[in-house]
């Protein structure tokens, strides 16, 4: 049998990998992918908690579904932003999009 904390460990690892990607990848698209990874880690946690702690409720599944929605929206908008940034400055490197530097 698989105890809850297996899932938590895996989700934490996935989350940290995603964090690393967000922090470290120089390519904007890769950053977005890493964000997707983090969202998935969250999703796994949600479902796992639901299944183990409150299986009689529906919340876990519902929240996971909403996370799907958020992820889809995030991907769409994020990629649109990246594409327009690329169109304007021929670069997808977040580090180079620093117009707001003080």
């Amino acid at each position, binding site marked *: *049998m698989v105890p809850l904390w297996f899932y938590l460990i895996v989700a934490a690892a996935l989350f940290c990998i995603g964090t690393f990607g967000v922090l470290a*990848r120089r390519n904007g698209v890769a950053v977005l992918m890493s964000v997707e990874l983090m969202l998935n880690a969250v999703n796994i946690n949600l479902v796992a908690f639901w299944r183990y702690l409150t299986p009689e409720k529906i919340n876990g599944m519902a929240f996971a579904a909403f996370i799907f929605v958020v992820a889809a929206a995030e991907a769409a908008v994020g990629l649109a932003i990246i594409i327009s940034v690329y169109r304007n400055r021929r670069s997808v490197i977040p580090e180079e999009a620093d117009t707001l530097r003080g």
Partner: protein
Amino acid sequence: MEITIVTVAFIVFALISLGGAIGVVTCHNLFRGTIWLMVSLFGAAGFFVLLSAPFLAAVQVLVYIGAIAILFTFAVMLTRSISNLKTRFTRLNINIAAAIALFVLLVVGVIGPVFILNPDLQQPVSSVTRTTIDLGEAFARGNSFALPFELASLLLTAAMIGAIVIARESDDEV
């Protein structure tokens, strides 16, 4: 603990998703990166199956792999950023250190004391569960998730419009 088919499946899916994730964050070639992403998401879908949420699993495959990942491939190709970067990472060491620190904190600070060492959270997965029909009803019932559901649809619409507006070539520029 004894090795059951569930345990094996869990380990397999864990390897798949983590490996895919590592592939995503490390690969040179971003198209492969998207493929890795799909692999990782596929592992997550496996988790959902194991957690007896088949609906979520299917939606995961459909939405992520069918739509989002394809979107990513498009983005990769449109931005010609498949392998146009000499270096993959910025401040590699700091970031690795930070990520590992976060992981350690999560495991040692939260998961360990709260879940691993907590005897009353060791119970096996209970047999009671909810089906997809319950989820649908929850989304449809007013006192449950109807409003968030509608809001989610609104969010999607807004995101779609926003994406179109942002990514559209403004007419004056060629």
